[in-house]
């Protein structure tokens, strides 16, 4: 039996990571993500989990890659500017194919941007931040409770697919305190990396016989020691650098395929009142909660509208979005940036259905009233800036 506590999504993610079997945390503080390490600094020693605050974001993720390679489950947490710093090592984690969880509590950018305000500005950074070709898995919970389950799922997917996984939240969700249920590890499925079946001297970390080769922990509980080499250079089955075109192509395509061939295990999404919808609002994270309110109101007024909410943002739920496009008259993408995820939706919809966008980058949440306005007339430009009256009510006018 788990336990119930009053906490924000940052703390929830920290607690959930422990449930998922966290074995190492390294990070560097940045608003609005710092409550993750703050909570962990308290509970990690109680559980004997190594916790360290490193000298910067680059060091943090690199330390995580080292710990993850050696055999433990590692996590780091950051926000926009920190994520930019982590990109090179994120690519290394992809290239090594080590499990890793990277939490990004999104804030407004570019640069130092809006440290204390929410935004959904890292959608494209998460997908395309590194150089070269590799898959990305990113999940976006919409409330603290979901953050718990998505965190456990992120760890599981990381282990299963030998792949770093992003958890994308935002500055609003991360600081909103709610009642949260933290399950016991026995209540949920906790996946560990697949151990090799062969003896250490027959083991290859990138064995050509597998789509996802087993990743041996360096030191097993029964005393076996798997010594092997991982290189950030393109490598052959032994992990040693290679430039042989055949092996380069094999590695690169396999890295994509190991994710794209398992979409049914990775994709997660929610349809909200979509059965008879003529308009579909696509939203994720805390924006989706405002959309939900707007849809309920619109339904009361007799408007046939629903929501499609991807919990897995990357890889894209392409088939699902295509299917929606074939059934509805309008698609509206609501996001707290100047239009990032809409690009992906437009790509997938490919002109079949008009795609509209509420793209607000004001450092404030998109309000249900704005979404409702857009639902009523998707082609209308919705006034995003607060009215004088609203500024009086909410403050922050200057």
């Amino acid at each position, binding site marked *: 039996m788990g336990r119930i506590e009053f906490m924000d999504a940052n703390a929830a993610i920290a607690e959930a990571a422990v449930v998922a079997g966290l074995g190492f945390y390294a990070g560097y503080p940045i608003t609005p993500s710092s409550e993750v390490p703050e909570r962990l600094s308290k509970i990690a*020693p109680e559980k004997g989990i190594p916790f360290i605050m490193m000298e910067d974001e680059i060091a943090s993720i690199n330390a995580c890659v080292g710990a993850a390679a050696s055999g433990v489950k590692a996590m780091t947490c950051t926000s926009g500017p920190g994520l930019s710093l982590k990109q090179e090592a994120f690519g290394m984690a992809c290239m090594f194919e080590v499990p890793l969880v990277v939490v990004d509590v999104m804030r407004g950018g570019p640069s130092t941007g809006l440290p204390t305000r929410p935004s959904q500005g890292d959608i494209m950074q998460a997908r395309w931040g590194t150089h070269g070709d590799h898959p990305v898995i990113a999940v976006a919970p919409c409330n603290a409770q979901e953050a718990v389950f998505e965190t456990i799922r992120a760890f599981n997917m990381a282990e299963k697919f030998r792949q770093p996984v992003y958890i994308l939240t935002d500055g609003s969700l991360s600081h909103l305190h709610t009642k949260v249920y933290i399950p016991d590890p026995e209540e949920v499925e906790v996946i560990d990396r697949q151990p090799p079946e062969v003896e250490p001297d027959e083991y290859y970390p990138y064995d050509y016989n597998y789509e996802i080769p087993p990743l041996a922990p360096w030191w097993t509980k029964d005393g076996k020691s798997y010594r092997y080499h991982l290189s*950030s250079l393109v490598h052959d089955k032994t992990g040693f650098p290679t430039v042989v075109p055949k092996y380069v192509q094999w590695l690169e395509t396999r890295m994509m395929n190991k994710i794209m061939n398992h979409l049914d295990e990775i994709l997660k999404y929610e349809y909200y009142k979509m059965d008879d919808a003529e308009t579909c609002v696509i939203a994720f994270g805390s924006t989706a909660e405002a959309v939900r309110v707007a849809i309920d109101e619109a339904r009361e007024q007799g408007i046939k509208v629903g929501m499609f909410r991807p919990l897995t943002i990357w890889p894209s739920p392409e088939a699902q979005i295509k299917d929606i496009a074939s059934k509805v008259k309008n698609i509206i993408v609501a996001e707290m940036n100047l239009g990032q995820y809409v690009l992906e939706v437009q790509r997938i919809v490919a002109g079949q259905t008009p795609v509209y966008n509420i793209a607000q980058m004001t450092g404030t949440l998109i309000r249900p009233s704005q979404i409702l306005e857009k639902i009523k007339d998707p082609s209308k430009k919705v006034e995003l800036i607060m009215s004088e009256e609203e500024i009086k009510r909410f403050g922050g006018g200057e």
Partner: protein
Amino acid sequence: MAVDYMKYLRTEKLPLYWCPGCGDGIVLKCYIEAIDELGWSKDDCAMVSGIGCAARVTGYVDFHTLHTIHGRAIAVAVGVKMANPDKHVFVFGGDGDIVHIGGNHLLHAARRNIDITVVLINNWIYGMTGGQHSCTTPPGAKASTAPRGSYEPTIDVCKMAIGAGAGYVARGFAGDPKRLTKLIKEGLDYKGFSLIEVFSPCPINFGRRNKLGDPAKLMDYMKSFLVSSAKAKKMSEEELKGKFVTGVLHKDESKPELTASYKQLVEKAQASDEFWAKYATGRLTDADRYKISREELKGLYPYDVETPLKEWKKL
């Protein structure tokens, strides 16, 4: 007793990547001798390197090895060590890698005195990328990015590491392998952060460009910058200007080691009343502690407990 070098090498990966006359191979030999003398099992050793000629070493040694990204080897090694405090963790790399781009990690690993041994090949140049000047290129020396001679001051890595708090700091020379083996061995054996800077020739990218192409000539030139610690004691500051002292430069047996300190913290946390209440005895039930029952939560969208659990199980 003769050392069986092949025991420590991935012989199927030979020949080595390095140019003839490169000092990296000598340092590797000394390094293997040091480990062999310590009698450590290969299974207990993990080696991390960044990017550069020297960093290629991880491909050849038969330990747990990570060939990571430029400048970050120490940071990666910190993660390995924190997660596996009872294993031996080492870093091997060049001056560009460890000092120039990776300097911040060097400083902080030294400050933390985490039990990692760093063997730093200082060949005064960026070897792999074609001889650009680094933070250790002697002023006036030519490099591909300093065709008229470098105009930048250099850094004394050992002094920097001592200043930052490293427990063990030594400087050796590839031209004096017997002593180098000893220095590396002492560093490996030290419980804390140890740095062994090794002056080592790059005849191809430093020697050739500075008309010291012959590896032996380059060794002699490097040696002209070196003074043994015994000799240095008798020299004035003026005489020591532009010179680098070799030998053990600093050793602090009293400084606490980082993973040991964390272990103490864990013990303290697990000995607290709070820990015993929470994890060990189960004296307090969750209902006592939070005063919210599962029943109360039901129907509270979206923080309803049963639904997410059911949803979760469906995955």
